[in-house]
């Protein structure tokens, strides 16, 4: 078979690698090059300006404001999503106990599983529009609900004090379902005997989750963490459609800043590329960091 190896490698590896280079690597490289120019995007002329764009960026209050929002998202979205996802998945897999031996989920688990997965079926655009109506300050579900209870309601997306948290809630809501399924699948791979043993030892549900489930699911949680961290650094579609960064830049994120600089209120493609380059390194370091920090020994069932 030795002589047959190369044709195989070439046919199966070269086309994807080429495509990867053309559609992923080369745009990245170009972005690096463009970020050192003053290109305005509508002609072929661009002058090299060295690192001037990055210098401007360092002093750009709007960029820092957006980064700060991303940092809050980064701190909260993964934690909230994973905690909720783990909680729901645990309840579905082993929430029901009712004094009997054995490990069962809560009643109606299949229904819950479907409901949790709903947001995953919708496109992000639909989710954004849906929630925009839920947050409608006069006729929205939330306002009407609060008013029905005789409580005052904020203007949700119209108030800088609440808008950011409203968007954050939607981010968590739209992600949780997927991780419920992901964690659920990982849990079903854990041998039942382990849980039965834990049960016999009389561990509470919370202890089971913390001491047994979580360590056994660590690989999955880590992957979830990286995905969610990258999502939190982006968040572009939801923010752009729901608030476009407003009111008064309170929900601005770095992706919206980049888009606005190139396609929105200005045509500074050079500067926008510089923002993109910064985003690239931020995402890369966040991913690397969370993989490194979360490194643990792998457990294999025999």
């Amino acid at each position, binding site marked *: 078979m030795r002589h047959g190896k190369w044709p195989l490698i070439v046919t199966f590896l070269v*086309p994807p690698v080429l495509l990867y280079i053309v559609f992923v690597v080369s745009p990245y490289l170009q972005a690096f090059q463009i970020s050192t120019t003053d290109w305005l995007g509508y002609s*072929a002329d661009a002058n090299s300006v060295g690192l001037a764009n990055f210098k401007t960026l360092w002093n750009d209050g709007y960029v820092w404001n957006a980064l700060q929002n991303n940092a809050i998202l980064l701190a909260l979205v993964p934690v909230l999503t994973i905690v909720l996802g783990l909680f729901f998945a645990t309840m579905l897999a082993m929430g029901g106990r009712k004094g009997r031996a054995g490990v069962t989920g809560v009643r109606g688990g299949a229904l819950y599983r479907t409901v949790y997965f709903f947001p995953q079926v919708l496109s992000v655009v639909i989710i954004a529009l849906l929630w925009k109506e839920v947050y409608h300050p*006069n006729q929205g579900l939330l306002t009407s609900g609060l008013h029905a209870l005789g409580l005052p309601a904020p203007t949700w*997306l*119209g108030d800088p004090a609440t808008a950011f948290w409203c968007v954050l809630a939607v981010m968590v809501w739209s992600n949780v379902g997927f991780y419920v399924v992901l964690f659920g699948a990982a849990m079903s791979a854990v041998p039942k005997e382990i849980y039965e043993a834990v049960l016999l030892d009389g561990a509470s549900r919370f202890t089971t989750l913390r001491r047994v489930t979580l360590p056994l699911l660590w690989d999955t949680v880590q992957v979830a963490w990286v995905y969610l961290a990258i999502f939190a650094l982006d968040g572009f579609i939801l923010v752009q459609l729901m608030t476009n960064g*407003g*009111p008064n830049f309170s929900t601005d994120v770095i992706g919206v800043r980049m888009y606005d600089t190139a396609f929105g209120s*200005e*045509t500074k493609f050079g500067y926008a590329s510089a923002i993109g380059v910064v985003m690239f390194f931020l995402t890369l370091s966040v991913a690397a960091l969370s993989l490194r920090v979360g490194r643990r020994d792998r457990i294999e069932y025999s």
Partner: protein
Amino acid sequence: MNRRDILRRSAAAGLLATPAAGLLTGCATGGGDDKSDANAYKGTKSEQNPLGVKEDAPLEVVIFGGGFGDEYAKAHETMYTERYPKATIKHSVTQEISKTLQPRFVDGTPPDVVNNSGTGQIDFNGLVSQNALADLGELLAAPSLDVPGKTVKDTLLPGAVEIGSYDGKFLVMNYTYTAYGIWHSSKLFTDRKWEYAKTWDDHIALCKQIKAAGIAPWTYAGIHPRYMSWPLISTAIKFGGPSVATALDNLEPNAWKSDAMKAAADAWHQIVKDKYILEGSPGLDHKQSQTAWCQGKAAFISCGSWLESEQKDVTPAGFNMTIAPTPSLGSGDKLPFEAIRGTAGEPFMVPAKARNVAGGLEYFRTMLSKKGAQDFTKKVASLTVVAGATEGVELPYGLSTVVKALDASGANGFNWVYNNFYRKLERNLVDAACGEFFSGRIGPADFLDQCQKGADSIAQDSSIKKFKRAA
């Protein structure tokens, strides 16, 4: 859909389209240089054909798919092909002008006519500073298509050329004529025996009366609060004279903190302080607030004269929307109450590198013919920059009030253009400040401070080309 999906799909598309190696060399900024001249379609100029259109040259028209739709453009295209039967017209509609056309500008193969409008509009400052637009001067000097003895320029309303001119060159043809004012329902006002107030004190008194009747006096587009900057700046200009506007446009130091602007901001703060604004307005977008207004939940709203066609589907019969100028601050106002902001809007342009520049100009000449303009007004209920084009056209109620208001305003009409010069200043910076101000989170002094800071940041940004206009 996530990033991975997009990449996957584009990868698949690329596989089908072109050999990959060729793509590698064609990077984003590498595209077309000066091949345009050799490729340009040119015909011979004659009396019949003053712009030198090549009869059989194809013409590509890109229309913004907004409130006006694109039926009107199809009619203009038919008029064009009636005169040049050998020409084929490629017509397309998009809401995302900048995203769709940016690569084609870079590549040097832009369409011949672009209706650069909407939220996806390309910033004109960027286009002008990159010389991406064709000079339309020749069009102005050409004879009108159906008004004998007059050039195209002679047929336009005053101000139509100035607004599209950058450093003295006419680059952007703004097709519609728009009035900006305060709207109310004549029906509601007649039913309740209210009368639109001509002075600010009376306006506040009226607001009090309206509120007592259980209706919110005001609502506004809280998601796009810049709509409220229009009546505020109008109030200031009427108080202090047109120089207030020139100062804003020319980014003069502390233009936003002039006495007139202070007086106007103080006055408008009253409707915030006294809670004359529909609760929840800061969370409404333009459609939602306009709909609340049409449903009678609020009495006043600030908008341009496109409001009537934008609200066509939700306006109750007999609503009778009426535009009115902003109330005068007092007897010391430099401009009379009737003065209203009127300006040409809905920009059309011919890219400098379009292959059929002459065809693009000729297309504009068709649009600006009396026939073309009348057809537009009939189809979309909006005025054009062509003088007298409303003759013989039956106007809907709201538009007829616009015509009356513009007539009454006459030579006292005013305008500002900083939003054209520096899109970011209005769309981002003044917008944000208005949001804070009209939701009551900041007072008038902080509001003007924030606007001034925005203007200063534009003035200090050496990468933005600056324009000046004469008083």
